[in-house]
């Protein structure tokens, strides 16, 4: 059975990527399971999607702990535990262009690593929902059991609901991803069989009721959400150019939905990168265009704003 885990952010089309890959595997004669996994957070937050494909009915459930293939939508996600469960047999595929051997050493990744080869490095500049189609195409090639035509049909079918323009763009990018990894075709092998196949259904498990003080606890501290680093959601980073800023801070501080811009009267405002989600509302709202959007490429480290 193949176990494939996608990592991305809401808004990068990763749920669709899993559906595209799942549909293509199904059309190639496999039994398929495909499930996105979100927390309570909404669009922008890191999420994952899980695809299993086997030769008979799949009993195994839940998040994939031991993936044969991990697909990562952009390099900033590498900071967030995406390597979990990788073995020497598994493959990590990053939508990035850092040379694969360098990345493998830097991450101390036990498995093999794939990034875009030099000739296709511009693919990593893809933004937004289109990243999903690109990653699905690359993943399909790495599995080696999906034909180009089958992938194309799955791309068109799964993206059709987003409009004809999106479907066409998705088709082109998915196939570009597929073509770019020709040298790594079939690199991912199938992992262990479904250990649950043929098992009798389990007995009921009774869970004890929690006390109300545990089940519905009170919070007495104010503004604890500041402990949550929503800055990790960002794929683009707004940066204020102090030379252009006309210090009309009531504009950007008010319109930022997330209260992530702070200012003292008459000063250039400060963006709170711990929490800025990168929506870029401020970029369009700033009257003298003093805020630029840069791609958020660097993984979060002590030196980099997150």
């Amino acid at each position, binding site marked *: 059975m193949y176990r494939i885990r996608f990592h991305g952010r809401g808004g990068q089309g990763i749920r669709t990527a899993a559906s595209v890959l799942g549909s293509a595997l199904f059309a190639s004669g496999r039994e398929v399971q495909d499930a996105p996994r979100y*927390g309570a957070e909404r669009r922008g937050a890191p999420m994952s999607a899980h695809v299993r494909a086997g030769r008979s009915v799949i009993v195994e459930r839940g998040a994939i702990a031991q993936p044969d293939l991990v697909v990562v939508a952009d390099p900033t996600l590498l900071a967030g535990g995406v390597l979990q469960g990788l073995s020497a047999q598994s493959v990590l595929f990053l939508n990035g262009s850092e040379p694969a051997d360098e990345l493998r050493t830097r991450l101390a990744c036990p498995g093999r690593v794939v990034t875009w080869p030099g000739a296709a490095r511009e693919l990593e500049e893809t933004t937004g929902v289109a990243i999903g189609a690109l990653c699905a195409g690359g993943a399909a090639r790495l599995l080696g059991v999906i034909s180009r035509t089958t992938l194309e049909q799955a791309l068109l079918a799964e993206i059709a609901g987003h409009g004809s323009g999106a479907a066409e763009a998705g088709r082109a990018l998915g196939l570009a991803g597929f073509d770019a990894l020709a040298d790594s075709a079939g690199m991912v092998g199938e992992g262990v069989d479904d250990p649950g196949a043929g098992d009798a259904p389990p007995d009921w498990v009774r869970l004890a009721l929690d006390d109300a003080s545990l089940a519905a606890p009170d919070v007495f501290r*104010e503004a604890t959400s500041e402990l949550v680093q929503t800055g990790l959601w960002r794929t683009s980073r707004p940066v204020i150019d102090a030379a252009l800023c006309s210090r009309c801070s*009531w504009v950007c501080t008010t*319109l930022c939905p*997330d209260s992530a811009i702070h200012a003292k009267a008459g000063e250039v405002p400060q963006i709170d990168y711990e929490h800025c989600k990168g929506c870029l509302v401020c970029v369009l709202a700033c009257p003298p265009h003093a805020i630029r959007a840069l791609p958020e490429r660097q993984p979060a480290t002590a030196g980099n704003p997150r």
Partner: protein
Amino acid sequence: MSEARYRSLRELPGVHALAAGTAMCAGCGGLEALHEVLDVLGTRTVVINAAGCMTLLASYPFTPFHGSWLYTSMASAPAGAQGVRDALDLLRSRGRIGADDDLTAVVLSGDGSAYGMGLSATSAAIERGLDFIYLCYDNEGYGNTGQQTSAATPHGARTPTSPGPAGHAGEKKDLFDVWVAHRPRYAATVIGAEPLDLARKVQRAASLAGPRLILALAPCPTGWDYDPMHGVDIGRLAVRTGIWPLKEYVDGAVVHTHVPHPRLPVEAYLSTQGRFRHLFEPLRNDALIGEIQQRVDRYWQNVG
């Protein structure tokens, strides 16, 4: 009226009463409106929140509020506000808290609650003269569960439950008029993209007592299908096309606080959002676009 009034954007509060780090989508127009409202009201509030996207604001152990927050079912936030108000009144009448310790009960609800399940409870609360502020962030659908059609979904918008080639066949309920028919102390429509207008209305609501209701159109990148960066532009277009009239009801009369002139054609607004894409491709649906334009024209013809 003699109360204080913000004269320019510059005077808006520079300190935010809602903390960062919430679970709302990047670019959420409802969150923008909520923080602008709370920035004016301050931190001495109890927010009574009907189930919807915003109930993810406070997910244990994290809360963006400085004041208290209470979660209710979709239909009963105004009843929750009654309970909170009564408890505060009891504490005051027994001398357990002084006037300085009093709090404002603020209902926070989505359109699914405000236009639908929670309308009966709202009607009853206004009838009883409950001293509270009601904020509805109207993202025109059941956002939290995937943007299914609600009583606030506009005619022609496509949603997962109105998937056909013409989108939603029904009409957006006029909740502001429904509220006004109750003769509350104050009612207003606002939008986060017009923060000065919003702040003045919240300031006025705060200066009054009794039922005060505020309806905020809340551009929703996830449910309306647009790049989050365009949220403020889309909000301004809602106003400039006349689709979202800014008005208030006070002392028995409705006054428009902004009359768009010239009024932009509705398609300037519709074409920015994926939920209206079927009006423009694969073929332009002039009939439906014209119908939506006519509704808006008719509204403004009747404005004095």
